[in-house]
């Protein structure tokens, strides 16, 4: 059984985990995603909670239901996810980074240089 350790509600953690599975290519477009009961078993959580997590992905258009067959990853799931994380996740991280830079007296030029160096190392 996998354990969950975040402070977010469990269904959000399940949704995040599923999104990462899609982003990392573990589950590809047009493939079947983990069922409610499979998730319930993997994480040891209530099936209703697992379904709530799955439904978050449905709402975002990442997966779609096929009647009687289960849920499948949609073709544009990767695009939607990347855009969402660029627009929201990265913006938050950048805000935090800038705040930290201000606290530590790191100038704009220094910060940009540090980012450039980090990107070159990659």
């Amino acid at each position, binding site marked *: 059984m996998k354990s*969950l350790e975040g402070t977010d509600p469990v269904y959000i953690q399940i949704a995040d985990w599923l999104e990462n599975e899609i982003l990392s290519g573990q589950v590809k477009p047009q493939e079947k995603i983990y069922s409610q009961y499979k998730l319930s078993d993997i994480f040891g*959580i209530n099936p209703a909670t697992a379904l709530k997590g799955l439904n978050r992905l449905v709402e975002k258009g990442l997966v779609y239901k096929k009647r009687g067959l289960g849920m499948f990853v949609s073709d544009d799931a990767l695009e939607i996810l990347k855009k969402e994380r660029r627009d929201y996740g990265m913006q938050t991280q950048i805000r935090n980074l800038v705040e930290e830079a201000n606290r530590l007296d790191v100038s704009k030029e220094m910060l940009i240089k540090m980012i450039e160096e980090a990107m070159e190392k990659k």
Partner: protein
Amino acid sequence: MIRCEALTKSFGNNQALQDCSFEINEPSLTGVIGVNGAGKTSLFKTLAGFIKPTKGEAYVLDRLPFQDIKVAQNVIMIEEGMTFHPNATLHELVDSYHRFYGNFDKKLAEKLLDYFQLDSKRPYRKLSKGMASGFRVALGLAAQAPITLLDEPNTGMDPSLRKDLYQIILKDYINNPRVMLISSHYLGEMEQILEKILLIHQGSVMKHDSLEAFQSLLVAVQGRPEIIHSLEEKIPFYEKKDYGAGMSQIIVRKSDLEALKLSAEQEKDLAVNGISSEDCFIYLTRRKGGSINDIYHS
């Protein structure tokens, strides 16, 4: 499947249940939580037909449960105080439950007895506290009864087994979804497997909702002491902590905070965070008056 309408039960002067109302209409794994003496066991015993309501009604499968044979065949309740024939071996007890409950899964009972390392030739009264709990859970699950009531199922078990037990219950539920109520005065260890919570406080239903809705009832608000202090005067709070260094925190109802309709400017000075469901439970049911500091105040 279960419906309580202003259910009240008193034993002499003691009000065990008071105007309890709630309904469960579909299979769900519900945690019945409350402090000791809140009325959890009395509620279960009423639903199982062991005791009769003083006022109000409980309906189980649309019938009045008290001494009703149809209800008895479809409801199993396990609790620490349940009595068995004093010399009966586990094997004999499994057999008698097998005869009574139509859906009883004998294979499952044997597997569970194995899992709990119970020797079926031993008499029940010779079991240690934790082992006896394991045996009762084996009966409670193997019965596969449409309504399964597990009252503090892990009493006396080792910490590792306590955790595993909830996973066993979950697996059994996934295998055969039905109405399952599990009581505990400790929410933290079982919340993961639950769909809903029924919070019993002083004999009444304080909250019957999804786990997420329950958890979002209360929030922790942090900010500079003077700002927190001004909030305290406007809305009730459950606990206050001063962290020194210009930071205080109060626990309040989310709805109370929202009703204040703070401006964006005011909100900027506050950090509002969720708290764990266990903490929610503790704050909501905390005894009024008296704090630890009053006892040890020098």
